[in-house]
């Protein structure tokens, strides 16, 4: 038992089961917290002691998996990353992330989001298949080239930026800052050669031109990824391509390393 002072705090939690309920309702619980209790700890305590039917989604409890995004006091936050007493409020309102379909209580459905993400091909595309299958070395990158994209690679795909974006509030087909950030991370990687294949998804009616720089995505990001910057830099690449044309494809040097040995067999039917 901790020796810190315990304070009783009231939680108002959104309860809704689309299969049986007609409309959502708010339910109140009283929980004793101390200064190191996170919102996730408090929700699990409610589940253990007071109401086992409360449904939540969580996994790592250390802010690296991106599962527990919720609206806490009307702002998008990770439940495992937020301390209850730091919110400075007697009533804590917990609701599921906005702009996603609700499965039950505080759990939202991310399957549509990941379906949209496949349109921008979030993987490195190269054409030297012989080297990829039988690697003989490693690709060289300078520190400067790494800094051009490493900030955008830190994304944990929690989906809170899409929830905060004002364009996603009305447009269900908008790709969203999370997906555009992923697209820019691969386009600006010096090893990737697939810019033309992604343009059709990004340059469309509901692609990066629907962003109006409200910067709410960067405000709520828990990992400092700054998707707003990725979208503006992505626009610059698209304008450069339209005005100047692609000048030269990226060349990346291969450093042969003798101890890297491998031989991969193609599975049947792979292309």
């Amino acid at each position, binding site marked *: 038992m901790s020796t810190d002072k315990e304070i009783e705090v009231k939680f108002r939690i959104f309860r*809704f089961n*689309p299969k049986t309920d007609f409309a959502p309702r708010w339910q109140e619980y009283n929980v004793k917290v101390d200064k190191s209790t996170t919102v996730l700890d408090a929700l699990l305590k409610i589940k253990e002691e007071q109401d086992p039917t409360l449904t939540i989604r969580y996994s790592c409890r250390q802010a690296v998996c991106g599962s527990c995004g919720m609206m806490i006091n009307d702002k998008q936050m990770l439940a495992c990353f937020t301390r209850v007493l730091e919110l400075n409020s007697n009533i804590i309102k917990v609701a599921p992330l906005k702009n996603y379909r609700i499965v039950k209580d505080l759990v939202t459905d991310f399957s549509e989001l990941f379906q949209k993400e496949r349109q921008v091909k979030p993987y490195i595309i190269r054409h030297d298949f012989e080297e990829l299958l039988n690697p003989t070395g490693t690709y060289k990158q300078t520190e400067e080239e790494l800094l051009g994209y490493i900030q955008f690679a830190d994304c944990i795909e929690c989906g809170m930026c899409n929830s905060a974006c004002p364009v996603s509030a009305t447009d269900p087909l908008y790709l969203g800052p999370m997906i555009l950030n992923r697209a820019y991370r691969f386009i600006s990687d010096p090893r990737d050669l697939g810019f033309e294949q992604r343009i059709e998804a990004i340059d469309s009616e509901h692609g990066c031109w629907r962003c109006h720089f409200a910067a709410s995505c960067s405000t709520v990001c828990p990992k400092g990824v700054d998707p707003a910057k990725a979208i503006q830099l992505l626009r610059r690449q698209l304008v450069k391509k339209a005005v100047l044309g692609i000048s030269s494809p990226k060349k990346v040097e291969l450093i042969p390393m003798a101890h890297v040995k491998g031989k991969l067999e193609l599975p049947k039917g792979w292309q």
Partner: protein
Amino acid sequence: MAIYEENREGVSGWFRITRYSVERALYVIQRLSGIGIVIFAFIHLLYTSWHPGGWGDVILGVLVTYHTLNGLRLVLTEHGFLIGKPTRAVYPYRKGTLYGSQRYLTMAILALFVIFVLIWSYVALVIPAG
């Protein structure tokens, strides 16, 4: 009910500005001023001699100067200028689009806005219209 399950904010979501940064409020006012100018321009195109007199001119001045100055800021930042280079993300995260040069640009734009509104009101209210 399907509409609760869908959980989309709708147009009222555009106006939730209390928990986010100042750029969100700037965006909402840009949209509203754009709609205001569209209404004025339609009427002015169809009846060329009409002009709202006196205080109407001041309101029009506020809308036009705000939309123009914020538009200039957007032309610069939406092509990637003045938002800072990508760096490594180190806690506490000071993101390039929210801190640094972009904030100074925003403050400069708002200061210019106040100055131009005063000049426009002076021309509209004090000098008798031609």
